[in-house]
């Protein structure tokens, strides 16, 4: 293995990703209020949405399902990811936001700013 080539390749990788960041690609993504329910149904097989609570900044959303479960959505880079959660939710208040834990370390906690989430605590 040629360490110089490996080092050069790593530098090229970092430079390319840096260029993408500098150009701002993918930075304007958000979850729109009128698409959270559809996103939850698209991302979670069999999930039927009933009511959507969308973060005021469009970073995340909690969608209540017809079967009593919830879809937790958050932006992962420029695209949403979702996990289906069963009640009771691991939800806590942190200032103006609510933080929901999906119980999965790689997924991480998800912050949602939405007044009506108070009713779920």
């Amino acid at each position, binding site marked *: *293995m040629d360490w110089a080539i*490996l080092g050069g*390749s*790593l530098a*090229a*990788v*970092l430079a*390319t*990703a*840096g*260029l*993408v*960041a500098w*150009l*701002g*690609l*993918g*930075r*304007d*993504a958000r979850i729109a*209020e*009128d698409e*959270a*329910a*559809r996103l939850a*149904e*698209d*991302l979670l*097989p*069999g999930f*039927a*949405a*009933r*009511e*959507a*609570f*969308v973060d005021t900044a469009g970073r995340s959303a909690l*969608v209540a399902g017809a079967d009593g479960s919830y879809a937790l959505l*958050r932006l*992962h*880079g*420029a*695209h949403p*990811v*979702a*996990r289906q959660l069963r009640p009771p939710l691991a939800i806590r208040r942190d200032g103006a936001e609510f933080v929901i834990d999906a119980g*999965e370390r*790689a*997924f*991480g906690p998800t912050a949602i700013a*939405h007044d*009506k989430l108070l009713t779920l605590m």
Partner: protein
Amino acid sequence: MDLPDPVTIAIPLFVAFMLVEIVAYRRARRTDTAGYEARDTLTSLLLGLGNTVTGVLFGGMALALFVWAGQFRLFEIGYVWWAWIAAFVLDDLAYYWVHRAGHRIRWFWAAHVIHHSSQHYNLSTALRQTWTNAFTLGLLFKLPLVLIGFPLPMLLFVGGLNLIYQFWIHTELVGRMPRWFEAVMNTPSHHRVHHATNPRYLDANYAGVFIVWDKLFGTYVPEIRPNEPGHEPIRYGLVRQLGSFNPVWAAFHEWIGIARDLWSAPWGSKLGYLLREPGWSHDSSRHTSAAIRAKWAARTAGGNVGGIEPV
């Protein structure tokens, strides 16, 4: 015959085309969900770099097996012109089957899932390659070519050409190619279907270079373009999106999932978590692609496709 590694030679071209695609998205002012995102790009390229390292570390095992198997070859095929063409076509046929196995057998999927773990579809996604191929039996699909008698350097060379061809089809910037080309060759349109998680597109278009294999073996699904009836935006990535930019997690998460399932499953079901299709579970608590398609078909037939008002 001493042949160069075509993939190594092509790397500067990979970088150049990727930069062109990045600039094209910027010039089109596409800074939303389309195109590139910095952390996704970094993960893809780090996985690509890692693939070259693991290739050096573990590639020798495959090579040793092929050299050993070569002593049992049926014919002594030299470097004649027709052998190059035959090797390229048969290598692509072998690729179709190893790729299909990579999607239909969870053990193989554990290695291939890396390539599908980006929610973007761009030229950097093409470089998001596995670290763990050596731990599957995928190379056995190419063993018949050695046993037929094609020279090993020739097989390595045409295999490299196959990989190079597949680079350019990982883009959303090319719509459809001319009809005759789409009929025979794998194209961006065909391969977008392969990377889609929309139920209608799951488990389709396994081709490397020639899409005719999918048409021959019943796995071909055409893309519905934006100007065609029934179009829906393609969602790329995994049915259960990863939700992490950690390249190590991307490389090993499915292996860890298999290990957990093998540990916790009832004895009679353990092998199913290794050899059945991804999403299979002994208690049907998970979703296979067939189950997802069935739910989608029921949902669209019932007219319940969202439209819930936000609160």
